Protein backbone atom coordinates (compact mmCIF):
# COMPACT_ATOMS: atom_id res chain seq x y z
CA UNK A 1 0.00 0.00 0.00
CA UNK A 2 2.46 2.65 1.18
CA UNK A 3 4.39 4.83 0.75
CA UNK A 4 1.63 6.87 -0.83
CA UNK A 5 3.41 9.59 -2.80
CA UNK A 6 6.20 7.58 -4.53
CA UNK A 7 3.57 5.19 -5.89
CA UNK A 8 1.39 8.02 -7.20
CA UNK A 9 -1.47 7.20 -4.82
CA UNK A 10 -1.69 10.84 -3.73
CA UNK A 11 -0.93 14.02 -5.65
CA UNK A 12 2.01 16.32 -4.89
CA UNK A 13 -0.19 19.15 -3.45
CA UNK A 14 -1.90 16.66 -1.12
CA UNK A 15 1.48 15.26 -0.15
CA UNK A 16 2.69 18.75 0.74
CA UNK A 17 -0.53 19.49 2.62
CA UNK A 18 -0.12 16.35 4.72
CA UNK A 19 3.52 17.33 5.33
CA UNK A 20 2.38 20.78 6.45
CA UNK A 21 -0.03 19.33 9.04
CA UNK A 22 2.58 16.85 10.27
CA UNK A 23 5.04 19.76 10.54
CA UNK A 24 2.55 21.82 12.55
CA UNK A 25 1.95 18.85 14.84
CA UNK A 26 5.69 18.34 15.22
CA UNK A 27 6.18 22.00 16.12
CA UNK A 28 3.36 21.88 18.68
CA UNK A 29 4.90 18.73 20.13
CA UNK A 30 8.33 20.35 20.41
CA UNK A 31 6.93 23.42 22.11
CA UNK A 32 4.71 21.38 24.45
CA UNK A 33 7.67 19.19 25.39
CA UNK A 34 9.78 22.21 26.32
CA UNK A 35 12.15 21.75 23.39
CA UNK A 36 12.20 25.44 22.56
CA UNK A 37 14.05 26.01 25.82
CA UNK A 38 17.81 26.06 25.35
CA UNK A 39 18.44 24.97 28.94
CA UNK A 40 16.43 21.82 28.46
CA UNK A 41 18.22 21.01 25.21
CA UNK A 42 21.71 21.75 26.50
CA UNK A 43 20.97 19.77 29.70
CA UNK A 44 22.03 16.53 28.02
CA UNK A 45 25.58 17.86 27.68
CA UNK A 46 25.75 18.99 31.32
CA UNK A 47 24.03 15.94 32.76
CA UNK A 48 21.04 17.57 34.45
CA UNK A 49 18.36 16.77 31.85
CA UNK A 50 18.43 13.85 29.40
CA UNK A 51 15.03 14.37 27.85
CA UNK A 52 16.62 15.09 24.44
CA UNK A 53 18.42 11.75 24.41
CA UNK A 54 15.27 9.93 25.46
CA UNK A 55 13.05 11.66 22.91
CA UNK A 56 15.49 11.14 20.02
CA UNK A 57 15.98 7.47 20.85
CA UNK A 58 12.24 6.93 21.30
CA UNK A 59 11.39 8.73 18.05
CA UNK A 60 14.01 6.84 16.01
CA UNK A 61 13.01 3.46 17.42
CA UNK A 62 9.27 4.12 17.13
CA UNK A 63 9.83 5.08 13.49
CA UNK A 64 12.04 2.04 12.80
CA UNK A 65 9.77 -0.48 14.55
CA UNK A 66 6.65 1.01 12.95
CA UNK A 67 8.11 1.09 9.43
CA UNK A 68 9.44 -2.46 9.53
CA UNK A 69 6.22 -3.78 11.07
CA UNK A 70 4.22 -2.16 8.26
CA UNK A 71 6.68 -3.65 5.76
CA UNK A 72 6.45 -7.11 7.30
CA UNK A 73 2.66 -7.04 7.13
CA UNK A 74 2.67 -5.84 3.51
CA UNK A 75 1.33 -2.36 4.27
CA UNK A 76 4.50 -0.50 3.29
CA UNK A 77 7.16 -1.21 0.69
CA UNK A 78 10.27 -0.12 2.53
CA UNK A 79 12.30 -0.29 -0.70
CA UNK A 80 10.40 2.75 -1.94
CA UNK A 81 11.15 4.93 1.08
CA UNK A 82 13.99 7.45 0.97
CA UNK A 83 17.31 5.84 1.79
CA UNK A 84 20.19 8.32 1.81
CA UNK A 85 23.66 7.23 0.80
CA UNK A 86 26.41 7.34 3.39
CA UNK A 87 29.45 9.58 3.05
CA UNK A 88 31.27 8.97 6.31
CA UNK A 89 33.86 11.78 6.15
CA UNK A 90 31.52 14.78 5.63
CA UNK A 91 28.95 13.17 7.95
CA UNK A 92 31.49 12.90 10.77
CA UNK A 93 32.66 16.49 10.29
CA UNK A 94 29.08 17.78 10.07
CA UNK A 95 28.15 15.79 13.18
CA UNK A 96 30.94 17.45 15.16
CA UNK A 97 29.89 20.90 13.89
CA UNK A 98 26.24 20.22 14.72
CA UNK A 99 27.15 18.91 18.18
CA UNK A 100 29.18 22.04 18.89
CA UNK A 101 26.31 24.20 17.62
CA UNK A 102 23.96 22.27 19.87
CA UNK A 103 26.12 22.90 22.97
CA UNK A 104 26.90 26.54 22.18
CA UNK A 105 23.53 27.63 20.81
CA UNK A 106 21.27 25.26 22.69
CA UNK A 107 19.18 24.45 19.63
CA UNK A 108 19.05 22.05 16.76
CA UNK A 109 17.60 23.31 13.45
CA UNK A 110 13.99 22.26 14.12
CA UNK A 111 13.81 23.52 17.68
CA UNK A 112 15.43 26.85 16.73
CA UNK A 113 12.63 27.57 14.24
CA UNK A 114 10.02 26.68 16.89
CA UNK A 115 11.78 28.92 19.41
CA UNK A 116 11.98 31.78 16.88
CA UNK A 117 8.25 31.53 16.21
CA UNK A 118 7.46 31.62 19.91
CA UNK A 119 9.35 34.93 20.03
CA UNK A 120 12.53 33.78 21.76
CA UNK A 121 15.32 36.17 20.76
CA UNK A 122 18.05 33.50 21.01
CA UNK A 123 15.98 31.33 18.67
CA UNK A 124 15.67 34.18 16.14
CA UNK A 125 19.44 34.78 16.21
CA UNK A 126 20.05 31.06 15.79
CA UNK A 127 17.80 30.92 12.72
CA UNK A 128 19.51 33.99 11.21
CA UNK A 129 22.89 32.36 11.83
CA UNK A 130 21.70 29.10 10.28
CA UNK A 131 20.51 30.92 7.15
CA UNK A 132 23.85 32.74 6.83
CA UNK A 133 25.54 29.34 7.09
CA UNK A 134 23.22 27.82 4.47
CA UNK A 135 23.85 30.68 2.03
CA UNK A 136 27.60 30.60 2.70
CA UNK A 137 27.71 26.86 2.03
CA UNK A 138 25.56 27.20 -1.08
CA UNK A 139 27.66 29.95 -2.66
CA UNK A 140 31.01 28.34 -1.87
CA UNK A 141 29.94 24.72 -2.48
CA UNK A 142 31.83 24.16 -5.75
CA UNK A 143 35.22 25.69 -4.87
CA UNK A 144 35.33 24.69 -1.19
CA UNK A 145 33.01 21.84 -0.30
CA UNK A 146 32.21 19.70 -3.33
CA UNK A 147 35.25 17.45 -2.95
CA UNK A 148 34.68 17.00 0.78
CA UNK A 149 30.95 16.44 0.29
CA UNK A 150 31.61 13.49 -2.05
CA UNK A 151 34.43 11.92 -0.06
CA UNK A 152 34.12 8.70 1.93
CA UNK A 153 31.17 7.37 -0.07
CA UNK A 154 29.90 3.99 1.15
CA UNK A 155 26.75 3.80 -0.99
CA UNK A 156 23.56 2.74 0.71
CA UNK A 157 25.26 1.46 3.83
CA UNK A 158 23.33 -0.84 6.12
CA UNK A 159 24.88 -1.90 9.42
CA UNK A 160 22.59 -4.92 9.81
CA UNK A 161 23.60 -6.24 6.36
CA UNK A 162 27.29 -5.64 7.13
CA UNK A 163 26.94 -7.59 10.38
CA UNK A 164 25.05 -10.33 8.57
CA UNK A 165 22.01 -10.07 10.84
CA UNK A 166 18.38 -9.29 10.06
CA UNK A 167 16.98 -5.76 10.36
CA UNK A 168 14.61 -7.02 13.05
CA UNK A 169 17.43 -8.35 15.23
CA UNK A 170 19.42 -5.15 14.73
CA UNK A 171 16.45 -3.02 15.85
CA UNK A 172 16.00 -5.24 18.89
CA UNK A 173 19.69 -4.78 19.82
CA UNK A 174 19.39 -0.99 19.41
CA UNK A 175 16.25 -1.05 21.60
CA UNK A 176 18.11 -2.87 24.37
CA UNK A 177 20.94 -0.35 23.99
CA UNK A 178 18.40 2.51 24.28
CA UNK A 179 16.87 1.01 27.43
CA UNK A 180 20.33 0.77 29.02
CA UNK A 181 20.99 4.38 27.94
CA UNK A 182 17.69 5.47 29.55
CA UNK A 183 18.59 3.83 32.85
CA UNK A 184 22.19 5.17 32.86
CA UNK A 185 20.97 8.66 31.89
CA UNK A 186 18.48 8.66 34.77
CA UNK A 187 21.22 7.68 37.22
CA UNK A 188 23.55 10.43 35.95
CA UNK A 189 20.71 12.96 36.09
CA UNK A 190 19.88 12.05 39.68
CA UNK A 191 23.52 12.24 40.70
CA UNK A 192 24.15 15.62 39.03
CA UNK A 193 20.93 17.16 40.34
CA UNK A 194 21.53 15.93 43.90
CA UNK A 195 24.98 17.57 43.98
CA UNK A 196 23.98 20.78 42.26
CA UNK A 197 20.21 21.15 42.40
CA UNK A 198 18.82 22.86 39.35
CA UNK A 199 15.48 24.57 39.67
CA UNK A 200 12.72 23.10 37.62
CA UNK A 201 13.16 25.02 34.37
CA UNK A 202 9.47 25.09 33.64
CA UNK A 203 9.03 27.02 36.89
CA UNK A 204 11.60 29.58 35.80
CA UNK A 205 9.18 30.68 33.12
CA UNK A 206 11.76 30.41 30.33
Amino acid at each position, binding site marked *: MGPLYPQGLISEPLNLLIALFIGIGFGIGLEAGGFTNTRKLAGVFYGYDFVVL*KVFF*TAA*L*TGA*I*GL*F*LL*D*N*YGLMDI*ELTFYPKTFWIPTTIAGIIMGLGFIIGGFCPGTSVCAAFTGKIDGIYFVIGAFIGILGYGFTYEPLFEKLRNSG*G*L*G*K*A*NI*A*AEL*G*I*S*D*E*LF*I*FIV*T*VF*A*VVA*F*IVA*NKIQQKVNSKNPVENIEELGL
Partner: protein
Amino acid sequence: MRTTDKIVIIGLLLGSVWLFFSGKNTPEKGEIPPGKLHELMLQKHRDISADELTERIINGDPLLQIVDVRDTKEYENYTLSGAINIPLKDILKKDNLAYFDQDVLNTVIFSNGTSDAQIAWNILTRLGYKNLTILKGGLNNWFETIILAKPPTGPYDKEADELYQFRKGARVYFGVGGGIEEESAPKPKVRIPIIKHKKKEVEGGCS
Protein backbone atom coordinates in the same frame (compact mmCIF):
# COMPACT_ATOMS: atom_id res chain seq x y z
CA MET B 1 12.47 6.38 37.21
CA ARG B 2 9.35 8.21 36.14
CA THR B 3 6.22 6.39 35.04
CA THR B 4 6.42 7.79 31.49
CA ASP B 5 9.98 6.46 31.16
CA LYS B 6 8.79 3.02 32.24
CA ILE B 7 5.90 3.08 29.76
CA VAL B 8 8.25 4.14 26.92
CA ILE B 9 10.77 1.40 27.77
CA ILE B 10 8.09 -1.30 27.97
CA GLY B 11 6.48 -0.05 24.74
CA LEU B 12 9.76 -0.07 22.81
CA LEU B 13 10.76 -3.50 24.08
CA LEU B 14 7.36 -5.00 23.25
CA GLY B 15 7.42 -3.35 19.82
CA SER B 16 10.89 -4.63 18.97
CA VAL B 17 10.03 -8.17 20.15
CA TRP B 18 6.85 -8.09 18.04
CA LEU B 19 8.90 -6.90 15.06
CA PHE B 20 11.50 -9.61 15.63
CA PHE B 21 8.91 -12.37 15.52
CA SER B 22 6.85 -10.86 12.70
CA GLY B 23 9.96 -10.90 10.50
CA LYS B 24 9.98 -14.70 10.39
CA ASN B 25 7.03 -14.81 8.05
CA THR B 26 8.54 -12.49 5.47
CA PRO B 27 10.43 -13.62 2.36
CA GLU B 28 14.17 -13.93 2.61
CA LYS B 29 15.78 -10.58 3.12
CA GLY B 30 16.23 -8.62 -0.07
CA GLU B 31 14.20 -11.02 -2.18
CA ILE B 32 11.17 -9.91 -4.11
CA PRO B 33 7.90 -11.72 -3.42
CA PRO B 34 6.44 -13.75 -6.34
CA GLY B 35 3.58 -11.29 -6.95
CA LYS B 36 5.95 -8.37 -7.40
CA LEU B 37 8.30 -10.44 -9.60
CA HIS B 38 5.37 -11.35 -11.82
CA GLU B 39 4.43 -7.68 -12.11
CA LEU B 40 8.01 -6.73 -13.05
CA MET B 41 8.21 -9.54 -15.63
CA LEU B 42 5.15 -8.23 -17.41
CA GLN B 43 6.42 -4.66 -17.64
CA LYS B 44 6.75 -3.48 -21.23
CA HIS B 45 10.09 -1.71 -20.78
CA ARG B 46 11.73 -4.91 -19.55
CA ASP B 47 12.85 -5.68 -23.12
CA ILE B 48 14.88 -3.51 -25.47
CA SER B 49 14.78 -3.95 -29.24
CA ALA B 50 17.87 -4.49 -31.40
CA ASP B 51 17.36 -1.12 -33.12
CA GLU B 52 16.94 0.79 -29.87
CA LEU B 53 20.04 -0.78 -28.34
CA THR B 54 22.06 -0.10 -31.49
CA GLU B 55 21.01 3.55 -31.47
CA ARG B 56 22.05 3.92 -27.84
CA ILE B 57 25.42 2.27 -28.50
CA ILE B 58 26.10 4.53 -31.50
CA ASN B 59 25.03 7.63 -29.57
CA GLY B 60 27.45 6.67 -26.79
CA ASP B 61 24.70 6.73 -24.16
CA PRO B 62 26.60 7.28 -20.90
CA LEU B 63 23.86 5.55 -18.89
CA LEU B 64 24.08 2.31 -20.85
CA GLN B 65 25.77 -0.75 -19.38
CA ILE B 66 25.74 -3.87 -21.57
CA VAL B 67 26.29 -7.25 -19.99
CA ASP B 68 27.08 -10.33 -22.07
CA VAL B 69 26.15 -13.42 -20.03
CA ARG B 70 27.56 -15.92 -22.54
CA ASP B 71 30.76 -17.90 -21.96
CA THR B 72 34.09 -16.07 -22.09
CA LYS B 73 35.03 -17.95 -25.26
CA GLU B 74 31.93 -16.75 -27.07
CA TYR B 75 32.45 -13.24 -25.73
CA GLU B 76 36.02 -13.15 -27.01
CA ASN B 77 34.85 -14.37 -30.37
CA TYR B 78 32.28 -11.63 -30.84
CA THR B 79 30.27 -9.28 -28.65
CA LEU B 80 28.54 -5.94 -28.74
CA SER B 81 30.57 -2.74 -28.47
CA GLY B 82 31.28 -1.83 -24.86
CA ALA B 83 29.79 -5.04 -23.44
CA ILE B 84 31.28 -6.52 -20.29
CA ASN B 85 31.37 -10.27 -19.86
CA ILE B 86 29.75 -11.85 -16.84
CA PRO B 87 29.10 -15.51 -17.67
CA LEU B 88 25.80 -16.76 -16.28
CA LYS B 89 27.55 -19.36 -14.11
CA ASP B 90 29.56 -16.60 -12.39
CA ILE B 91 26.76 -14.08 -12.00
CA LEU B 92 26.43 -14.53 -8.23
CA LYS B 93 30.10 -13.82 -7.56
CA LYS B 94 30.56 -10.82 -5.29
CA ASP B 95 32.68 -8.86 -7.77
CA ASN B 96 30.19 -9.44 -10.57
CA LEU B 97 27.17 -8.44 -8.49
CA ALA B 98 28.88 -5.10 -7.83
CA TYR B 99 28.19 -4.17 -11.48
CA PHE B 100 24.45 -4.39 -10.81
CA ASP B 101 24.47 -2.78 -7.35
CA GLN B 102 23.76 0.72 -8.59
CA ASP B 103 20.74 2.75 -9.59
CA VAL B 104 22.24 5.05 -12.22
CA LEU B 105 23.02 2.93 -15.27
CA ASN B 106 20.51 1.02 -17.41
CA THR B 107 21.81 -2.50 -17.70
CA VAL B 108 21.03 -4.46 -20.86
CA ILE B 109 21.59 -8.19 -20.48
CA PHE B 110 22.00 -10.41 -23.51
CA SER B 111 22.88 -13.94 -24.52
CA ASN B 112 22.67 -15.75 -27.88
CA GLY B 113 18.94 -16.24 -27.54
CA THR B 114 16.93 -14.96 -24.61
CA SER B 115 16.83 -17.86 -22.16
CA ASP B 116 20.20 -17.24 -20.43
CA ALA B 117 19.56 -13.48 -20.30
CA GLN B 118 16.11 -14.24 -18.85
CA ILE B 119 17.64 -16.44 -16.14
CA ALA B 120 20.15 -13.70 -15.27
CA TRP B 121 17.36 -11.11 -15.18
CA ASN B 122 15.27 -13.29 -12.85
CA ILE B 123 18.14 -13.87 -10.43
CA LEU B 124 19.18 -10.22 -10.35
CA THR B 125 15.63 -8.92 -10.04
CA ARG B 126 14.92 -11.28 -7.16
CA LEU B 127 18.01 -9.93 -5.47
CA GLY B 128 16.49 -6.47 -5.71
CA TYR B 129 18.68 -4.94 -8.44
CA LYS B 130 17.00 -2.37 -10.64
CA ASN B 131 17.16 -0.89 -14.16
CA LEU B 132 17.61 -4.28 -15.82
CA THR B 133 16.49 -4.95 -19.39
CA ILE B 134 16.88 -7.86 -21.79
CA LEU B 135 17.89 -7.61 -25.44
CA LYS B 136 14.81 -8.83 -27.30
CA GLY B 137 15.69 -11.96 -29.31
CA GLY B 138 19.26 -11.97 -28.02
CA LEU B 139 22.45 -11.54 -30.05
CA ASN B 140 21.19 -13.84 -32.82
CA ASN B 141 18.22 -11.58 -33.47
CA TRP B 142 20.41 -8.47 -33.17
CA PHE B 143 22.83 -9.88 -35.77
CA GLU B 144 20.00 -10.73 -38.10
CA THR B 145 18.27 -7.38 -37.65
CA ILE B 146 21.28 -5.05 -37.85
CA ILE B 147 24.18 -6.81 -39.53
CA LEU B 148 22.15 -8.86 -41.98
CA ALA B 149 19.58 -6.10 -42.52
CA LYS B 150 17.67 -6.58 -45.72
CA PRO B 151 16.31 -3.72 -47.85
CA PRO B 152 12.56 -3.20 -47.61
CA THR B 153 10.48 -4.90 -50.25
CA GLY B 154 7.25 -3.79 -51.80
CA PRO B 155 6.15 -0.21 -52.49
CA TYR B 156 8.31 2.63 -51.17
CA ASP B 157 7.81 3.21 -47.47
CA LYS B 158 9.69 6.17 -46.00
CA GLU B 159 9.85 4.77 -42.47
CA ALA B 160 11.02 1.34 -43.60
CA ASP B 161 13.64 2.93 -45.83
CA GLU B 162 14.92 5.17 -43.05
CA LEU B 163 15.15 2.17 -40.75
CA TYR B 164 17.10 0.26 -43.38
CA GLN B 165 19.46 3.22 -43.90
CA PHE B 166 19.98 3.39 -40.14
CA ARG B 167 20.77 -0.33 -40.01
CA LYS B 168 23.17 0.02 -42.94
CA GLY B 169 24.93 2.87 -41.13
CA ALA B 170 25.04 0.82 -37.95
CA ARG B 171 26.62 -2.03 -39.88
CA VAL B 172 29.50 0.26 -40.79
CA TYR B 173 29.77 1.40 -37.17
CA PHE B 174 30.11 -2.20 -36.07
CA GLY B 175 32.86 -2.71 -38.63
CA VAL B 176 30.82 -4.62 -41.16
CA GLY B 177 31.03 -2.86 -44.52
CA GLY B 178 30.23 -4.85 -47.62
CA GLY B 179 30.57 -8.22 -45.95
CA ILE B 180 30.79 -9.70 -42.49
CA GLU B 181 34.06 -8.37 -41.08
CA GLU B 182 33.19 -7.92 -37.48
CA GLU B 183 36.70 -8.79 -36.28
CA SER B 184 38.08 -5.63 -37.90
CA ALA B 185 36.04 -3.35 -35.66
CA PRO B 186 38.12 -1.83 -32.92
CA LYS B 187 36.64 -2.92 -29.66
CA PRO B 188 35.67 0.17 -27.65
CA LYS B 189 37.07 0.41 -24.19
CA VAL B 190 34.93 -1.36 -21.64
CA ARG B 191 33.08 1.18 -19.58
CA ILE B 192 33.67 0.81 -15.86
CA PRO B 193 30.39 1.29 -14.08
CA ILE B 194 30.01 2.91 -10.70
CA ILE B 195 30.75 0.19 -8.23
CA LYS B 196 29.19 0.90 -4.94
CA HIS B 197 29.54 -0.75 -1.64
CA LYS B 198 27.86 -4.10 -1.46
CA LYS B 199 24.26 -3.60 -0.43
CA LYS B 200 23.32 -6.97 0.87
CA GLU B 201 24.50 -10.52 1.21
CA VAL B 202 23.58 -12.66 -1.74
CA GLU B 203 22.31 -15.39 0.49
CA GLY B 204 20.13 -12.92 2.39
CA GLY B 205 19.77 -12.49 6.10
CA CYS B 206 18.21 -14.71 8.63
CA SER B 207 14.86 -12.92 8.79
